[in-house]
């Protein structure tokens, strides 16, 4: 595996291929994925992780594109992971977030990966956590995660990221939506994107009122933006950069480590169950402790 690279050097495709293939392995799941994640978590690293979420078409990718050049002024390099939905019918997916990205800032300093949700609920893919950990270990100092278009509750990103930007639009809802649980409770900053559309002022007032009711010292700020023109993006980035700088050291990493352990445990149990069901453990219940130990030894051998 490689290290995130310096700005001037030409793109090292061999290093990138290694990283890209490791992500594919993680997406394929199973033991190999767990081993890769374990190794990643053992590597000292401490990336800032920024989640960007909001309803379909709100302008998440367009904002990523507008924020990238600003982020590159503060961070030596940036990795973007963009999740889009898989079809529940065919398993296929149209991963279209790249279409919005202005590639002029690409080169060695930006790594961009599109990821299909592959049936996972919660606004991200099952492989998203481990991929963040891998990118972190690969020394990308800022990792941006774009979730798929979410509704009101698919907020798993909150557990994986240091900070979360919620993207909404004018006309997104009235005072009732603004006070419903979910979206408005979890963001660290809010963009009212498509500020060129009617209804901006009302949306801003409602959202700010709702955020002021949160039991926090400093309620999140609301930034009107026009991602496609860059309007308001500098102010938004200023806030995000400060939030990331102030985020407690290793806070999201600790949560990702706990989640990784939980995933490993679940995988182990399910593998053992499969092993038992595949003949290894016929009538296990009636076996003596000695036989059970043999079984475990067999299982262990099979796995390693």
């Amino acid at each position, binding site marked *: 595996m490689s290290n995130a690279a310096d700005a001037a050097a030409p*793109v090292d*495709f061999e290093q*990138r*291929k290694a990283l*890209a*293939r490791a*992500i*594919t392995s993680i*997406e*394929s799941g199973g033991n190999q994925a767990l081993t890769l994640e374990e190794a990643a978590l053992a590597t000292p690293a401490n990336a800032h992780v920024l989640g960007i979420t909001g309803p379909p078409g709100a302008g998440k990718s367009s904002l990523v594109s507008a924020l990238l050049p600003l982020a590159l002024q503060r961070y030596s390099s940036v990795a973007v992971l963009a999740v889009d939905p*898989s*079809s529940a019918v*065919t*398993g*296929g*997916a*149209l*991963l*279209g977030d*790249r*279409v919005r990205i202005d*590639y002029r800032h*690409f080169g060695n300093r930006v*790594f*961009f*990966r*599109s990821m*299909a949700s*592959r049936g996972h609920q919660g606004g991200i893919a099952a492989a998203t956590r481990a991929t963040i950990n891998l990118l972190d270990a690969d020394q990308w100092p800022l990792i941006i995660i774009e979730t798929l278009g979410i509704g009101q509750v698919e907020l798993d990103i909150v557990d994986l990221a240091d900070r979360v930007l919620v993207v909404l639009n004018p006309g997104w809802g009235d005072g009732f939506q603004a006070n419903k649980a979910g979206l408005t409770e979890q963001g660290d900053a809010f963009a009212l994107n498509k500020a060129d559309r009617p209804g901006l002022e009302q949306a801003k007032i409602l959202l700010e009122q709702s955020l002021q009711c949160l039991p926090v010292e400093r309620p999140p700020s609301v930034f009107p933006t026009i991602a496609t023109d860059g309007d308001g993006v500098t102010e938004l980035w200023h806030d995000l950069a400060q939030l990331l700088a102030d985020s407690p050291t290793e806070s999201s990493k600790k949560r990702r480590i706990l989640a990784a352990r939980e995933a490993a445990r679940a995988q182990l149990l399910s593998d053992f169950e499969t092993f038992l069901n595949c003949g290894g453990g016929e009538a296990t219940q009636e076996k003596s402790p000695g036989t059970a130990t043999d079984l475990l030894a067999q299982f262990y051998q099979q796995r390693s």
Partner: protein
Amino acid sequence: MRPKRILMAKTGLDGHWRGPTIVARALRDAGFEVIMIGMATTNEIVAAAVDEDVDLVGLNIGGHIDVALRAVDAVQSTCPDMPLFAGGTIPPHACKQLEAKGLEVFPPGSALTDIVASANRLTGLSSQQ
């Protein structure tokens, strides 16, 4: 088995989106993960093919065949085993040039079922015939 991944790129500055969009949709409906990058330079196509670790690169070619041929060369030199296929309004002599580089080429009027069958073949989902 994991879904196969296909990059769908447009070479050249060209507003003809319908072809690649329809093809991408057909591939999606056949179970592929299709990564759209839109209009892209040679370097951007290569970088996307690498970062996305795709199994197949699709090029929608509009206008200048030279640009497309350069993109093919760049992909093939960076990713030697990467299969490519292409479509769009490609004149017959240009189709031959692309085929000479090992591409399967689908000019206007090609059936989507043939394109999907080609994707299945090129990504190893069905055997070569």
